[in-house]
């Protein structure tokens, strides 16, 4: 029962946000090392590490890196996803606020390995505090010659720009983010097999590497210590460590970095234990299916969580105690997705809003028993048919909540009020 700090190793060092202190703690040595390696060697190291994307989908990082064409007939770009919008997740915020140079170093290495000369870090508009920290750190890195022309005399050029969002969860989706960087409405773009992968035709139809803040922040340690070292942590298929943003009904909410495969209950204890009686956990951000307390005996890695019927997602670990009314909670979830649906495709645009209307009617006491199956059916109609994964993400949690807590729905519809709240008032 302990944290295993890789990304957070130096996070408590005072002044680690400054270049000086970062360098004292080995900062930018990974970049120097990488510049001495061939690009392919860097990619191979990432491959050996088994690092998987921390943005939600868990896609092996090296495959993207390796998929970028190895010639320069077109400009290449690195796009760092710092749009952190998944409800329940706040790890990227902390990584930027408290360890900006680690991320910058990771981005530059990624740029070197993928022949990119330009990187964009897409920070959500609300994140002005992290953005200011990043700004200061980037300026420092330019001054020290880690960014700009001829980095450390290596002949490699790399410019890093901050591009800020303006309020849209959907822009965290990688192709919608591309639209947003290109100055358009934040709507997603066609995906493989309907269009080439972003690694071939991303930003402005040029090869583009897209990775999450946490993913890129792992890179310096991997290069410094070797991929094998990283792969020695975690499980076979889920290597390394993962930051979980623990929030909700726990005594010490916050970000905790643990080894992949750590038992869920251990993480709960790390976070000071549950306030009250554990009802359920949402382990990977609002988009993943809810995990009732009875099923919480599970390890935190991609495969185990999947087997348990949920997902690791972005590591937004929300803890609910028994005071939470699932119907109301899910109404809030549904409202979130309806609000954030970009409107492009029919199922998500119409389906998410329809579900909110049904929830509202149920909460207002006008529910009908058939509404439960109707909700399930709407979930089916959205899931897998929407343009991007936001639609799926809107359907999964609701479907899971009905699966596990159908009785709460039925109670609400029959009585016109919440079962949980009724129990609480009788208890009180």
């Amino acid at each position, binding site marked *: 029962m302990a944290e295993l700090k890789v990304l957070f190793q130096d996070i408590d060092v005072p002044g680690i946000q400054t270049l000086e202190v970062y360098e004292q703690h080995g900062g930018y040595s990974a970049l120097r090392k990488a510049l001495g390696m061939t690009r392919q060697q860097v990619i191979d190291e990432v491959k050996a590490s088994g690092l998987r994307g921390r943005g939600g989908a868990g896609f092996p990082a090296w495959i993207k890196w390796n998929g970028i064409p190895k010639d320069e007939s077109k400009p290449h770009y690195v796009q760092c996803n710092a749009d952190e919008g998944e409800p329940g997740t706040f790890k990227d915020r902390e990584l930027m606020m408290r360890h900006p140079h680690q991320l910058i170093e990771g981005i530059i290495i990624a740029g070197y390995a993928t022949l990119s000369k330009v990187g964009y870090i897409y920070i959500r508009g609300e994140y002005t505090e992290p953005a200011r920290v990043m700004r200061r750190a980037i300026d420092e890195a330019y001054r020290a010659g880690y960014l700009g022309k001829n980095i450390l005399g290596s002949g490699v050029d790399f410019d890093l720009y901050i591009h800020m969002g303006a309020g849209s969860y959907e822009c965290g989706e990688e192709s919608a983010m591309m639209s947003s960087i290109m100055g358009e409405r934040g709507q997603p773009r066609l995906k493989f097999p309907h269009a080439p992968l972003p690694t071939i035709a991303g930003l402005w139809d040029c090869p583009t590497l897209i990775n999450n803040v946490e993913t890129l922040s792992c890179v310096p340690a991997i290069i410094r210590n070797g991929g094998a070292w990283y792969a020695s942590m975690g499980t076979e298929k889920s290597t390394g460590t993962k930051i979980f943003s623990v929030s909700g009904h726990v005594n010490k909410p916050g970000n905790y970095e643990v080894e992949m495969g750590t038992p869920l209950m251990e993480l709960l204890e790390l976070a000071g234990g549950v306030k009250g009686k554990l009802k359920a956990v949402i382990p990977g951000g609002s988009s993943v299916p809810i995990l009732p307390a009875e099923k919480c005996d599970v390890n935190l890695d991609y495969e185990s969580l999947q087997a348990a019927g949920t997902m690791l997602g972005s590591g937004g670990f929300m803890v609910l105690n028994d005071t939470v009314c699932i119907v109301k909670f899910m109404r809030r979830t549904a409202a979130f997705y309806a609000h954030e649906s970009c409107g492009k495709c029919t199922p998500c645009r119409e389906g998410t809003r329809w579900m909110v209307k049904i929830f509202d009617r149920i909460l207002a006491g006008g529910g009908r028993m058939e509404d439960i199956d109707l909700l399930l059916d709407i979930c089916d109609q959205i899931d897998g*048919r929407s343009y991007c994964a936001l639609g799926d993400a809107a359907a999964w949690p609701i479907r899971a909540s009905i699966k596990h807590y159908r009785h709460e729905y039925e109670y609400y519809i029959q009585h016109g009020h919440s079962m949980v709240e009724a129990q609480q008032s009788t208890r009180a």
Partner: protein
Amino acid sequence: MAEQELVTIEINGIELQVPKGEMIIESAKRIGVDIPFFCYHPRLGKGQAANCRMCLVEAGTKQPDGSVRMMPKPQTSCTLPASQGLVVFTDTVAIQKARRGILEFLLINHPLDCPICDRGGECPLQNNTLFYGPGVSRFVEEKRHLPKAFPISDYVVLDRERCIHCARCTRFSQEISGDAQLDFLKRGADMMVSTFYDTEFTSRFSGNTIELCPVGALTSRVYRFRARPWDMKSQKSICTRCSNGCNIWLDYRPNRLVRVLGRENEAVNEEWTCDRGKFGHEYISSDRRLLSPLIRKDGKFVTASWVEAYQLIASRVRQAVQEHGAGSVGAIGGAHLSNEEAYVLQKLMRVAIGTNNIDHRLEPNQPRATDGLFGRFGVPFTQNAIADIEKAKTIFILGSELVDEQPIVFLRARKAWFRHGAKVVIAYPEVTETELRFDEPVVLRYREGTESTLVNGLLHLVLASGKAVTDGIAQGEVQALRETLREYTPEKVAEMTGVETERLREAADLLGEGTVILCGAKVRNHPRYAETVHALANLTILTGNADRENGGLNILLPEVNSHGAADMGVLPDVLPGYARVDDDAARQRIEGLWEEKLPAEPGMSTQAMLEAAARGQMQVLYIIGEDIAQKYHDTELAQRALESAGLVVVQDLFLTETAQYADVVLPAASVAEKEGTFTNTERRVQRFWKAFNSPSPDVKSDLSIFTELAVYLGKSIPVFSAEQVMDEIGQVFPAYAACRYDNMPAEGVRVQASAVPSPQLVPVQTEVPAV
């Protein structure tokens, strides 16, 4: 074109070969499998489509061992490219369910106002719901409420409640017309289509969005509630509102036009039309049409019979010829006539009256017909086909507000830039709408009237750059040109034209092989037209575009049949096929065919005729379908001429201002009431057909009027049909032989150039024109 790679795919168990990358929704059509859709449109960018999700199919790929690995989610067939071994199912239970689901979603917010919706009867949403939809809706909540039908322009009505967010209209406005005046506002279920703050939708192509809309969200303000699709008939026609020759459908109820729709012709308008075309044919069914001949008696028009009218005209013509010679009779007009009519008109004037006084041009500039391009490239005005503009590497638009003058040519030019990355140079004295439709084109803002200096300045730079293509041109010629252009330095030209030297250099850099030059009104109408055209011809030759598909010089003509009228010899100095009247051999060939003696003296141009008339020297002025009192560039002269001419005969659809001066008014049939061919700006001859009868039996087609008049003039020009006239045209002007009705292809025939004289440079005047 390179051989297209074929791949083998399987749709619903049927194996077929299709071009690699073809969208499955298209491949399915090949075997008669219908996949419902809303947002898909083959001409709209694929990148942003696939949002309606109606066209979902299940797909997988054949594995080496013969098994099929299915993709976990259904895929949109409108964006799914065919690849080797792709296996597709379009009608599984899951897909049927998905379609029902999508339709249910689309209908939850769609008002149930089909009975009062203009789209009713031809509505994809209605149709798809009928075939694939759910029986009942489970939606019990309140529907979305938004402003109902309100006009966003004189033509277009927007009903936001009906919109299904397919984005066809917005994609059209951003990708095709390029004005981007429609976009979605907000997001999610609040998303709605809009112009900027609901201001006027001023796009010149707005009508297309009405046709693209798969529901009744965008409807025509003009057509609104006029008819239902099932009680209309349609006839194929050609738009008469400019020289582009868009293919259209005339939709009509008995003897009344109700609307115009775009008709597909890949070579010309693809399927688009401009708003002038779509909404500008109202005149055909106007209540103000002339219904019988009119003769002025005691200063007032009285209804007359055709016999009276013909007799009056014939006697006055005969008298004029006898007393003043055939030169005292003249005809103006022809750019709105069909080829067949134009041909018969000039034959009437030349054979029955014996004069070459005939001209269709109304612009200030009326040079000799064989000047300009004809002598240089063997084509009269344009070298390039509209469709080939798409392939250009550079497009140089000179002196034209292209969006307005040549809307369909503009769409191709824009496509060349948008889809194929062509570079664009635009030269015009003021800000044009055209230049706003391209991202950062090179704009040359020259001072009005300095076109030829500008072109020579560019030529100077091309020669100086060393990239000039001089193969096959006598070195002496090039040298001479170089000499004479020596003083057209960028600095000097900048001073003369007002264009910065840097812009000149940027523009010259872009001129090279594959440059399409498009010239419009500013060049055509300029008194120094010939000079500019010579300079442009030199530029065309020296950039290697003398004889290219994707490069060349194009002087775009204004009216529906300007080109045809010129081809047919509705000009004072040439016979059909540009045979010069004063070239004995050429004339005699036609004399032989017609078995008639023809006047060998060139006649008067429009300007000359009007000047003569104003001096009281024209005994008879015959004006066909041109409101010169309003439209002639010098209206004052036109009016004086009409006042002073002996007898004024006006043949038109309306009592125009010009007709007010007439002694005899002859009511003519509209394009919907007759048949024939027009030759468009790219020299494409296209047929149009009769849709319905004229508003009165006393309205005659121009063709009938000309032949009947000939009889009264004592010369019969036997004409049985437009088809037969075309056969004769083919003999007189062999280039038209391919236009015989019985073997004319659906997309029309581009009239071939005459043998191209080897391109020759023309020395330019060294004197830089003063400004």
